[in-house]
């Protein structure tokens, strides 16, 4: 092996990972060309022994082993591959022998006294192996590099194609600035073969297949043949390699995908001339025969999952998730009916109307005195009902997904010209909710025909070009439906990363001509009830202050104002004369079928639910499900949300430096309201709830169609320097951070401050609106139990032991003071103390960042 590496690399070495057992690439100078690479998986090591068979063809064995007292030992197995079998049965393994790595072997062990010059070898390990009738005892040294050499991206580890397609992959190790990769695959007969490549990890690495000599044969020179290439695509993370290095854990600092293209003529057809996506196995999973049954989630895992899939964990839901398991919980949630926003709001307006309390415009005094309300004046009710649903609706996953979609397909009650409109926005929200687990195609169609979207992005009343009046169609919706709702500005890889030309420039995914053509599609649309009146005054229709009577309906068509000509958008021609509705369907089809849409939408949904800065591999895995749910259907959002939440990157606790996401302000408030049952709040009118919970972020009240933050936002400062994307930090800057911190303080703690008991009105008012800590008050008798409960619900148990200790001590001291004063059982004081603990935790990064 040494010749081989020296040929390619010069001098090498490998960092020490574990105190006890050194990992990495090892070889024996007396058997140059053979070798092994050793990784860690959980408490075990995984060994790949690459070698040659009696014909000199490459072959490999693998094994996992226990580590004890400076020795690692286990079975050695050989894999065979049947490409025709179903995935679960493709790989069969046979145990052929065993290995023992002895790190304690003395330097003068007989294995190392075979006359071979080993001068300069730093650490020697005896590699004792048995394979059938063969056996050997080799004197192995590890390859070295300067330990200070920066390794970013850190890409060492074992990579494979995923649990559904196991059995092949590659292992990699950094060698200074180069990456050494050994690809493990199979030949046409299903025999295990390997190929090796060394190169710049940021570029394709050429692979060579070697002919060598058998394990018991006299060394002969190796012969290399081109075998293909490996194109690793790693997300660069800074500062990651050291994470966990002390524990010997393979860093998860780099994530990415690698594309393997084998040209080895002897390789099985399945591996030849095809691209495979590979991703890195994580600690604990680095074995060929992966698929384990889903274990019951721990309480912390359940809590963590619920902060991604709902508006926040509750004690009851944590227990329920643990009983059901994640899969069954998802099944159940996906089948729950939608809790509506529009219908109850409409009922509220109707109730005011029935009571004769709607303003009719004739009685300024009543308006002035607030004795009547306009039917348009239910914006705060809408916000209030949104909270009630977020906090209490049983279809939590759908509610959370709908909220995510409302940040992709934005309408807002913010613009001055449509301010005070509550009811239409609610109807729009329900359309998002209706299709949240349906097909993205239907969703985009409904959005594109929604009357309030027509108002917000100004294409209701949009008409075909008029040469006389010298007008042309409004381009607003045409632009934003491409830029924001479907394909995005630039051509994307399936990873969601921009594709770049040879100069490194991004490629626009559409041009001004596409916008002009698409603008012609969105002409002739008007509110349904308007269309019924024969479109007589289409000219005036788009004037200010006109709103649909029934916002649940789609817009209708005034054919005279629709441009019936053919339109060529993104290279596809929408034929002439097929009518406005068919035109929109065609446009939606070509946007949904565009290759950008799966990664563009998948990435943003991941950002809203799980992680601000997902790895390209994660995006690609989800985008693949978006492209095809396994049954040939594109755009199945139920499958997409399942793929997002079940993905290994979502399920494992993020150790990468950029893992997780900052909770946006709404999710912070929602989390405490759910954890501590904001039941009392529901007893208030919707108007009061909306007002009371108004914070730094209001659902469906973004400043513009660009949402509260952009999906590519890199906050200035350390995050930007590290290249980390974190959109939510746009709402955590300066005074906004302070205001949001105080909002949480207000709800969790300040409202529980003891007040003047004489002030009965205030006492009653406070009672009506605050969180319900009553079930927690008895737990103060044993503050440790209370703190554990809070840490679980609010932080998925991310608090450290020290943090818990400080909180417990605070509670104990305070309880002692209360007791000494004779108020040990006073409910008001206990409530304030619970509030203090809740506040303290919710003010910590362990609550604010879900990772």
């Amino acid at each position, binding site marked *: 092996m040494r010749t081989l590496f020296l040929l390619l690399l010069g001098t090498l070495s490998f960092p020490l990972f574990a105190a006890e057992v050194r990992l990495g690439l090892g070889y024996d100078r007396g058997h140059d060309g053979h070798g092994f690479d050793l990784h860690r998986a959980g408490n075990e090591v995984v060994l790949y022994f690459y070698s040659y068979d009696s014909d000199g063809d490459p072959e490999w064995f693998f094994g996992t082993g226990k580590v004890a007292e400076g020795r690692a030992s286990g079975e050695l197995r050989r894999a065979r591959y049947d490409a025709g079998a179903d995935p679960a049965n493709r790989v069969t393994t046979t145990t052929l022998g065993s290995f023992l790595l002895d790190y304690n072997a003395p330097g003068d062990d007989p294995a190392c006294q075979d006359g071979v010059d080993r001068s300069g070898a730093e650490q020697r390990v005896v590699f004792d192996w048995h394979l059938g009738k063969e056996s050997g005892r080799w004197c192995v040294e590890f390859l070295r590099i300067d330990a200070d050499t920066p390794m970013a991206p850190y890409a060492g580890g074992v990579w494979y194609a995923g649990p559904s397609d196991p059995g092949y992959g590659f292992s990699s190790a950094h060698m200074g600035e180069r990456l050494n990769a050994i690809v493990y695959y199979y030949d046409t007969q299903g025999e295990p073969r390997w190929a090796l490549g060394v190169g710049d990890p940021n570029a394709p690495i050429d692979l060579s297949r070697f002919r060598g000599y058998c394990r018991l044969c006299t060394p002969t020179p190796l012969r290399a043949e081109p075998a293909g290439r490996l194109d690793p695509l790693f997300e660069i993370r800074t500062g990651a390699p050291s994470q966990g290095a002390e524990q010997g854990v393979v860093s998860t600092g780099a994530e990415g995908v690698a594309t393997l293209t084998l040209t080895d003529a002897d390789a099985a057809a399945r591996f030849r001339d095809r691209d495979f996506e590979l991703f890195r196995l994580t600690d604990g999973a680095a074995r060929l025969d992966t698929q384990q049954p889903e274990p019951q989630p721990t309480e912390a895992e359940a809590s963590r999952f619920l902060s991604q899939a709902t508006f926040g964990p509750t004690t009851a839901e944590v227990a329920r998730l643990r009983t059901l398991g994640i899969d069954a919980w998802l099944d159940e949630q996906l089948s729950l009916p939608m809790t509506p926003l529009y219908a109850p709001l409409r009922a509220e307006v109707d109730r005011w109307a029935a009571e004769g309390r709607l303003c009719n415009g004739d009685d300024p005094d009543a308006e002035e005195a607030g004795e009547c309300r306009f039917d348009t004046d239910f914006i705060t009710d809408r916000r209030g009902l949104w909270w009630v649903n977020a906090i209490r609706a049983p279809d939590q996953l759908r509610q959370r997904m709908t909220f995510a979609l409302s940040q992709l397909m934005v309408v807002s009650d913010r*613009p001055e010209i449509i301010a005070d409109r509550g009811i239409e926005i609610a109807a729009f929200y329900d359309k998002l909710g209706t299709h949240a687990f349906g097909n993205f195609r239907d969703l985009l169609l409904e959005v594109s025909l929604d009357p309030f979207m027509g108002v917000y992005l100004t294409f209701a009343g949009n008409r075909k070009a008029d040469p006389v009046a010298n007008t042309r169609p409004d381009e607003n919706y045409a632009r934003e439906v491409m830029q924001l709702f479907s394909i995005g500005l630039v051509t994307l890889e399936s990873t969601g990363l921009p594709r770049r030309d040879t100069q490194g420039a991004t490629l626009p995914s559409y041009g001004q001509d596409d916008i002009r053509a698409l603008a012609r599609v969105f002409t002739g649309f008007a509110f349904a009830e308007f269309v019924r009146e024969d479109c007589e005054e289409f000219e005036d229709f788009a004037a200010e202050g006109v709103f649909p009577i029934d916002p649940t309906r789609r817009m209708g068509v005034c054919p005279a104002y629709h441009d019936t000509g053919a339109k060529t958008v993104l290279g596809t021609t929408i034929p002439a004369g097929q009518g406005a509705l068919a035109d929109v369907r065609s446009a939606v089809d070509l946007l949904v079928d565009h290759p950008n849409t799966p990664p563009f939408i998948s990435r943003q949904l991941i950002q809203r639910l799980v992680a601000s800065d997902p790895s390209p591999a994660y995006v690609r895995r989800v985008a693949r499900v978006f492209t095809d749910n396994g049954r040939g259907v594109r755009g199945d959002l139920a499958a997409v949300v399942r793929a997002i939440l079940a993905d290994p990157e979502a399920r494992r606790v993020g150790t990468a430096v950029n893992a997780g996401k900052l909770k946006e302000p709404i999710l912070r408030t929602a989390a405490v309201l759910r954890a501590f049952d904001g039941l009392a709040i529901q007893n208030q009118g919707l108007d009061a709830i909306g007002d009371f919970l108004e914070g730094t972020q209001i659902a469906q009240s973004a400043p513009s169609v660009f949402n509260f933050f952009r999906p590519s936002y890199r906050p200035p400062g350390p995050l930007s320097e590290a290249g980390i994307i974190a959109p939510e930090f746009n709402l955590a800057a300066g005074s906004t951070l302070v205001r949001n911190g105080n909002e949480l303080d207000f709800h969790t703690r300040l409202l529980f401050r003891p007040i003047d008991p004489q002030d009965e009105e205030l006492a009653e008012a406070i009672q009506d609106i605050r969180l319900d800590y009553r079930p927690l008050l008895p737990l103060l008798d044993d503050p440790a139990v209370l703190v554990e409960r809070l840490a679980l619900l609010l932080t998925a148990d991310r608090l450290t032991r020290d943090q818990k200790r400080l909180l417990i001590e605070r509670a104990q001291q305070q309880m002692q003071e209360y007791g000494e004063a004779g108020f040990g059982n006073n409910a008001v004081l206990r409530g304030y103390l619970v509030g203090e603990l809740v506040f303290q935790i919710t003010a910590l990064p362990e609550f604010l960042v879900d990772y």
Partner: protein
Amino acid sequence: MTLARRTLLKSMLAGGFAAAGGSLGWLQRAHAMSDLAGAGDYRALVIVFLFGGNDASNMLVPTGEDRYARYRGIRTGLSLARDSLLPLSGSDEGLHPSMPGLQSLHARGDLAVVRNVGSLITPVSRTALERGSVSLPAQLFSHSDQQDQTQRGTADLLDNHGWLGLAADALESYNPPSALSPNLSFAGTNILQTGRRMVPYVADTEEIRGLVVFEDGGPSWTLHDQLLGRTRANALAAEHLRRKRDANDVFLELSRAFANLSPMQTVFPASPLGAQLEAVTRYLAVRDQFGFRRQTFFVGVGDYDTHDNQLVQQALNLAQLDTALTAFDAALGELGLRDAVTTSTLSEFGRTLTINGDGTDHGWAGHNLVLGGAVRGGVYGAPTSFDLAGADDTGEGNIIPSISNDTHAATLLRWFGLSEGEVQQVLPNLRNFDGQDVGFMNV
């Protein structure tokens, strides 16, 4: 629950600056700094960003017969009546009727209108455009991209730095160290003020607040301080923690600085922009307490994306702009800072000359307004030809910029105090353009 009760509850949060605590070192430092600061050497740049793309063609309209006729021929139903325009003396253009205050400022010589500024990498002619032989900024006509380009100042650079932030980096030595950034934004985070070192402090128009738990002090703060610690392994957690600690430091400085602030005579209009500019004046008033000598301010309002209902909406927008800027000018007079503060509007793009019925779509070049005692009043830049076949039009009613964003920025930055070398560093594409200074500043 009645509104009164709600107000009562919310008022539980209000506590002023009581019990802020902290060291006296800050005061001593502030005094030392104010000694250092030469009172005569203070300059501030205020950027008013008109989000959505202001329709420049209806903000400044030709009054001369021929050009007005051409304007009306294209703008048809969206044109403003000729007799409603507010003429600018010495030019054949008039302002939108909602802008009488700015008309007066122009008459006083303190307002420059800079015509047809926009995002460019190199100069673009219609011929070159049609031949496709010229490099164009990416994603022309997209809000987000053009906002970024306007704020970066360099149209083909894709980093997160803006020309004001880089300028603040260059002039860092003018300002003593403080927790509060000398660069303040009242319109959220932005690229414009983000430099390699300088990051704007995102302020708001409300009363200065700290974290209640910090203001109150006591055992809750002690515990929180311990629980927070100093850092985290997760970068997002670490960053939030860092920002929270910074916010407390800023609050301490601000609460002291604002403690003795006397109220202004000038009454600002009750509009979002009025409130933002009023807040700017408060920070200007306490500049000496920080010893600041070079500051930048970012304010901005939306609703400029007038795809429809433009006649009504733009009138509202420009009225808000006019009244707020006029009040700001008065307040600067009150503070004696008219010559020291220069205000410039920016917008991501102008809008199409052609109309879509009752609105206009995303265009390219637009006009900026520059206001201040150091401004050489007048109308700058090439007039719009109002001819779709003209050399300044893409042929579709998009006006090709004749002044680059870079050049507009450079003109402001030279006044701000950057050396020529620094200007070129901040705006590396500036050398692509012939006229590297619009000339609207007295330097």
